[in-house]
């Protein structure tokens, strides 16, 4: 079955429909399963632990999913890493080993990840080749032509974006549609981010060649749309995983009492069967004893009769 179909079936499942399942699940569990839930099962412990976790110290996947793709940025990824690092540091349970500034470490990690990713690809070579070929074509007319091509790329990216959104399901499309459409706003934010470091910039841009600005802008717009589509896809994948986890917990909790009842029923039947067999054995013993007694009586009668006959 294709992922899309699975997803639609999954989302139409009434068990998955509500948004805050775990608290209700625990209540239902408490009401229907046992009087003392602490003694119930490891599953209860698991759910309780998940619900009682300190949100300041743990990474909540749902928190990231709640972020729209346009908002998912260096800050979100950095926070996610920081939460993960903080959790690890807390586990060490030693103040000397705790990280003083997990956010700073997370940001350094982001940079290290980025360097490794850039080293692992040939994107720079591809860009350099494309750029040198394009710059060789100078002039306003050529620049305009390239800009038109860039817009065509943007249109294709639009189509790909819509297709991707459709592929990850109507729900996701609706949820993230606005964010995808606000890519323009995101561009402005990123521009600000780049200029945040302008105090470090003492060099200047002497010239942006004719046509190059339009072409680079078009390439950037197309890349931004692809980035947004990727983020929407990643977010939807994580959302699916979280729902699947919640659903599995629900099913486990829902089937727990049923399993318990089933085991009780089997146990009762086993006990009944055991008692029945024991009763039969007892009855059999009694019957055997009675038969033996009757046999002995017959033998005695027979013996007496033979004795009488001999005496006669």
């Amino acid at each position: 079955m294709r992922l899309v179909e699975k997803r639609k079936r999954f989302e139409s499942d009434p068990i998955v429909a509500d948004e805050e399942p775990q608290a209700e699940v625990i209540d239902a569990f408490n009401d229907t399963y046992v009087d003392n839930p602490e003694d119930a099962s490891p599953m209860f412990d698991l759910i309780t632990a998940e619900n009682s976790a300190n949100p300041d110290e743990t990474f909540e996947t749902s928190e990231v999913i709640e972020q729209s793709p346009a908002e998912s940025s260096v800050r979100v990824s950095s926070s996610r890493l920081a939460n993960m690092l903080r959790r690890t540091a807390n586990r060490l349970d030693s103040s000397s080993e705790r990280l003083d500034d997990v956010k700073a470490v997370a940001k350094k990690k982001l940079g290290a990840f980025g360097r490794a990713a850039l080293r692992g690809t040939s994107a720079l070579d591809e860009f350099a080749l494309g750029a040198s070929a394009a710059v060789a074509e100078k002039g306003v007319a050529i620049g305009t032509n390239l800009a038109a091509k860039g817009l065509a790329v943007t249109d294709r990216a639009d189509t790909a974006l819509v297709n991707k959104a459709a592929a990850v399901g109507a729900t996701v499309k609706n949820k993230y549609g606005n964010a995808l459409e606000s890519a323009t706003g995101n561009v402005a934010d990123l521009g600000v981010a780049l200029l945040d470091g302008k105090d470090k910039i003492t060099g200047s841009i002497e010239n942006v060649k004719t046509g190059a600005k339009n072409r680079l802008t078009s390439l950037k717009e197309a890349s931004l749309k692809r980035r947004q589509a990727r983020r929407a896809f990643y977010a939807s994948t994580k959302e699916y995983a979280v729902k699947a986890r919640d659903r599995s917990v629900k099913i486990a909790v829902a089937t727990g009492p049923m399993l318990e009842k089933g085991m009780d029923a089997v146990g009762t039947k086993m006990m009944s069967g055991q008692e029945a067999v024991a009763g039969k054995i007892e009855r059999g013993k009694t019957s055997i004893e009675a038969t033996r007694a009757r046999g002995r009586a017959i033998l005695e009668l027979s013996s007496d009769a033979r004795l009488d006959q001999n005496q006669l």
Partner: protein
Amino acid sequence: MTSFITLELLEQAGIDLGGEDVDALVEHLNQTLEERVGAEVVASLDDDKLKELSDLQDTGTDEQLVDWMTTNVPQLSDITKDEIDIIIGELAESSDEINEAK
């Protein structure tokens, strides 16, 4: 610091830089690029994979990190290429603003 965006690359793209300390601009561009690519990589990973990557970054070599990336990060080449396009596009668009800040 490894420079992925260089003066030569920018020149090829049609952007001519000048000034006494143009290297600071290039360094800033590369730092921003690395963080953005790193953010996209993190966004693409689930929690288990992210933990694996973070641990490898603490304990493994640079080469192991690169190998892990190419194996485990979907669309890695597209991610890096797009982020380069975006940052150079932003630079071209912001050229006037950057020059005014001098």
